[in-house]
C-alpha cells in the first residue's frame, strides 16, 4: 500500500514534470534539483505551485534547505502532520 510519503513524492514529481517540461525526459527524483537544471528562480516557482497543491506554506529559511525532491517531500510531510 502506498504510504503518505510516497503519495506526496509522486504528486511533487508530477508538479516538477508538468511545471518544467524541458526536464521531463531526464527527470529522476534522486538527482538534485540543481542538477536537473532548476535554478533558484525555478525553485521559488516550484514551491509556489507546491504551496497551492498541498495547502502549506514554506518559510524563506526552509527554501534554503531544499536540494532534492526528497527534501520537499519531508517538509510537506511534516507540515501536513501538524
Amino acid at each position, binding site marked *: 500500500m502506498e504510504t503518505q510519503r510516497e503519495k506526496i513524492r509522486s504528486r511533487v514529481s508530477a508538479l516538477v514534470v508538468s511545471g518544467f517540461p524541458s526536464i521531463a525526459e531526464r527527470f529522476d527524483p534522486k538527482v538534485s534539483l540543481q542538477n536537473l537544471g532548476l535554478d533558484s*528562480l525555478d525553485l*521559488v*516557482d516550484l514551491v*509556489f505551485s507546491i504551496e*497551492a497543491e498541498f495547502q502549506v506554506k514554506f518559510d524563506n529559511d526552509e527554501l534554503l534547505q531544499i536540494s532534492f525532491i526528497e527534501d520537499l517531500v519531508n517538509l510537506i510531510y511534516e507540515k501536513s502532520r501538524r
Partner: protein
Amino acid sequence: MSRVYVTGVGVVAPGANSLDDVRRLISSRESLLQPESVCVAGNALWLLAGRTDHNNATRKPRAVTMALEAVRRGLQQANLDSSAGAVYREGLRLYVGSGIGPLDAVEAGYEDWFASGKPTHPLTVVRGMHNGIAAEISITNGLTGCTRTFAMACASSAAAIASAVRDIQRRDAHGAIVCGVETPLTPAMLDAWIAMRVYANPHKDSRHSGACMPFDLHRSGLALSEASVAFVLESEKSVAARGVKPIVEVLGSGESSDATHLTNPSVDGQCVCMAAALNDANLSPDDIGYINAHATGTVVGDRVEATAIGRIFGTEALVSSTKGLHGHALGAAGALEAAFTIAALTSRLAPPTLGLREVGPDCSHIRHVVDVAEPIAPSKAAMSNSFAFGGHNVSLVFAAT
C-alpha cells in the same frame, strides 16, 4: 561620422515572418486585421486585432519569446548566427524598444490576486520587468556590451533605432542589435484602449464591423496588433570587414518632443522632428520619395500628421500608413514600419493605405497611396514616422544602397 547600414532584419509580425514576407505585403490589398471577441464588463465585444502566428510554448512572457525569435532571424540574415559570428556578436550594443513590456506576465501574475486575493506568482517581478526582454536577448546571444531600453509609447522602437544609429555614426559602436516588441493583445489592455474611445468602431456588435482606416473621412480609431522586429545595424567599416551586403543605409534620424499634451499631438513638434531627420540625413524634402506615416486611424492624430507632412513635403512625396494592413503595434510600430519602409525602398514600391477609401478633407493636402502600391522614384530616399502619446516624435530616413 560613420555611415550606418542595415545588414539583417528579423520579423515576427502579423502575416510576416521575414523581410521577404513584408515585401510581398507591400502589394497586398487585404488587411491582416482579424475580428476577435473580447469580454468587456461581462459583455462579448468584437474588435479587430493583428496577431502573429508565433507559438510560445515556454513559460517566458510572449514579448520575450517573440523578441528572441526576431533577433535570431535578424542575426541569421546578417550572417551572425554561426559560431564565427559569436565573437563579433559580443561587441554589439543592444537597444530594445517596447512601450509596455512583458504585459502578459504582469496581467497573469496579478490576475488571481485581484480576482480572489490569491498569492501573487513569485516570478511576477522578473517576468514582468520591462528590461527583462533586453536581458533575455543579451543572455541568449552572449551580448556583453552596453544595453539600452526605450519606453516611449509608440515611438519606443524608433527611438531605439535612432539612438543606435547615432552611436554608430559617432563611432561609439561598430554595430548594434535593435529590437522592437509589443504584445498588447491581453484582455485588460484591450479594455483600457476601448475605454479611451480610440479603438476602431469598438461598440458595434457585428463581427464584421469596425475597421482601421487611416486618413479616411470615416476613420474611427486604431486597431491593435502584436509584433517584434529586430535589426542588425553596422558601421561602414564593419560591413567592409565582414564582407556583408547591406540591405539599406540609414541616412539619419530626427527626434523632438511636443511638450504640450499627453495625447494631443502637435503639428509644430512633428515638423521639427521631420526637419531634424532631413538635416541629419543631409537631404532636402524633394529627396524623399516615400513617407511611411505614423497615422493610426484616429481622428486627431491623422489630421495633425497630414498637416505636418503637408507643411514640409507638400504633395511631392508618396504617403501611406501601413496600419490599415497590420494594425498598431504600439512600441513595436517604429520597428515594424521601418521594416515596411525598407521593404518599400528595396522593392521600389510604396504600399497603399489599406482601409482608406475616401480621403478626409482634413488629410487631403498630401499625396496618398490609395488601393494599389505605387512606384517610388529612383534615387529617392524614404522616411518612417513614429509620433507617440506623450508627444515623443521620431523620424528615420533610409536609402537604397
